[in-house]
């Protein structure tokens, strides 16, 4: 199935999940009761859910001092958001630090602008089950990412990768 080779468009990061260690035990009740944007429902989940508006993100803060930050649209923003949360925790009176900031997962989407014939894509690492899911699931091994390829030409990538990779992979596939 030959298609026109237009230039591959850049991917747009939709979501980044990162973790950081604040390196001190936290009193979740204290945090929940003194922060404006925190919810804490110990029966349901053992962490405080805090949100900030500036890079629009959500963080899960655990009593061990570890924190998960989700929702940022770029690595820099994720780092900034995580630092903001750490600052809030600091201001609430805990000696929070900022150790081991690590990005765990990035979700991006891009559009190749031409329809893709999924049945024709016979590669080794993919699964295409139209009965279950309309997209083809391609699990690339080298950078460990998973691509969801749809017939309309849209591609969703998820995993740990950096921005330069997707273009290379699009060429690889097509």
């Amino acid at each position, binding site marked *: 199935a030959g298609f026109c080779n237009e230039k591959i468009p850049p991917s747009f990061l939709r979501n980044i999940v990162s973790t950081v260690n604040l390196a001190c035990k936290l009193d979740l009740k204290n945090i929940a009761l*003194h922060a404006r944007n925190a919810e804490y429902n110990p029966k349901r989940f053992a962490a405080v859910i805090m949100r900030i508006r500036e890079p629009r993100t959500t963080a899960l803060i655990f009593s061990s001092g570890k924190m998960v930050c989700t929702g940022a649209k770029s690595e820099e923003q994720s780092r900034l958001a995580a*630092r903001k949360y750490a600052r*809030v925790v600091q201001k609430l009176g805990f000696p*929070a630090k900022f150790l081991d900031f690590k990005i765990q997962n990035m979700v991006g989407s891009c559009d190749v602008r031409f329809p893709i014939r999924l049945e024709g894509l016979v590669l080794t690492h993919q699964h295409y089950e*139209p009965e*279950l899911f309309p997209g083809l699931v391609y699990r690339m091994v080298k950078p460990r990412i998973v691509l969801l390829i749809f*017939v*309309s030409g849209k591609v969703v990538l998820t995993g740990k990768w950096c921005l330069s990779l997707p273009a290379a992979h699009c060429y690889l596939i097509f």
Partner: protein
Amino acid sequence: MPGGRVCGACGCAEIEVDAARGDAVCTGCGSVLEDNIIVSEVQFVENSGGGSSAVGQFVSLDGAGKTPTLGGGFHANLGKESRAKTLQNGKRQIHHLGNQLQLNQHCLDTAFNFFKMAVSKHLTRGRKRSHIIAACLYLVCRTEGTPHMLLDLSDLLQVNVYVLGKTFLVLARELCINAPAIDPCLYIPRFAHMLEFGDKNHEVSMTALRLLQRMKRDWMHTGRRPSGLCGAALLVAARMHDFRRTVKEVIRVVKVCESTLRKRLTEFQDTPTSQLTIDEFMKIDLEEECDPPSFTAGQKKLKIQQLEKALSKKLEDFEGEISSYQDEIESELENSRPKAKGVFANFTKDDSIDDNASSILGEEEADEELEAAANHLNKDFYDELNEKDRVKRNEDGECRNGNETLVRPPALESLLGPLPTAASLGITESIKECISTKDQEPGENTGDGELDLSGIDDSEIDRYILNEAEAQIKAELWMKENADYLKEQKEKEARIAKEKELGIYKEHKPKKSAKKREPIQASTAGEAIEKMLEQKKISSKINYNVLRDLNSKGSNTPKKEDDSTDDSTNTKKLSRRKSIASRNIANPVNSVGKRLRPLISTQFAKKAATEEVTFPNAQAEASDVEKPAAVLVESGPVAYNPDEEVEEEEVEEDEDHCMSALQLLGGNDYGCDMDEDDGY
């Protein structure tokens, strides 16, 4: 000792080995060197019919890998059989399911092979066997190309199809089998048969196939459920051949939703092929191909978005023009109207302020933040308009109709002034912070050294923290919401504290029992047993009164322990619990060489309290009554509800019968897997 080489007695090297009898004899001196050596011969046994059969077992290839232990290691033996059993069960289930699907023997055998592979790769662990079997069967269906859908399997098993799909995907991935994609054409004969076209079955099928191929070329089938496409094709084909098949009938056969079917039909309608007549369709094949519907939908959306953007831009331009026209009209009107005179001027001014106030309250829903921002930028402009507006309000306000922008300014004005509502309060705060000079940079890093504060506006962070009053309110609300949970937590903590003091506390990890225990250090056997009972679980079937009296020395200790626990505990609950436990501790089992493994049930330990006072009495009673009995163990279980009667019950039942402790406890306990450090 070299059995077959050299005789030990005479040194002769001629050894005769008789395989049948299993001995090795020296031909020189006649001494028997080996007896009962392992023979390998076939033995025959007569069975009931009179025939004879060979003695032996078939050993599977899989099991041969494990070292044969000759019946010594019980576990190894069980393991081998277990694997064979698993495979047998699997085979049975595969055949059962496969027959319902009418698969032939070859498919079933292949499925069984898949199953064996799955078992050897440990894929069956943690998954329901029925799911694995269904996945194996479906894999076979896919590789063979039979018209079976995953939906059929899920119907048979009454399992969610996506769950089955997940298992199937895992299986396919692990076995590295790339099942070829489903071709909807495979399903046509099956569905056509179900729709009962009679004689014309073949023709309808061919038409439907042709339709499907057309759909494929029009990119309608990528990413869609094949059954939906089949349904649409069959429906159209049936109509083409003058068969009345309603949508409902087709749906029942094809198992998709009505809306899906309609959607497919609509999509097909959009293709140019739908414009052909029946005859034309059968003969002609249009060259052009369409894009997949999702692609075209995406393009449409993009176009609409772009259009909207362009429109909004144009709107803004127009609005600008309109407002400029409005201003001109305003100024004209002003000049032409007579001004209010003297006293009335003051009145009108007051009125206008009231009007403004009422208009604010009416317009609270309006975007206050937007207004604040707009105000910030256009303050002067609006002030001007304000003057004009106030005067204008004296009249009927004919110009109000199109002047939405002018209606806003008065509200804005008063926003900055007195603040009527809490909502505007919050906003003013943020506005002030935006406008006012920034706070000094914090500088101090509170000793962490690793949190880089650059780029973080401290004032913004402060906004995320509640002040005292707000924190209190939130605390109240939160406490109310989570009252139950807090209560539970307190009880749990109190219980743990009590248990910790008496050293009974175990870390209750979910699904993991604390296996590592310190070795028990005790001076006498009795003490050792006490400590052991302390550590291990106590069964509810033991009468502890009796146990206590087996060793008369032990009866003194419970009282002491009671006192100590009484002092330390506050609640009766806990003390009762502890005294039960201490009673148990104090009852060493008479060593008749039997191994006692009392199991402490946690429920037993958690009984609610009764009066402590009765305790010493009950104990004294019990000990008096039971001293004469040798090994009396209670026959029935200890009651779980901890009333005072419990103790009396225990006392009464003691005298009933005499059963061995082992019998009561041990029927199921003895010989099971247990820790080695338990031997007494």
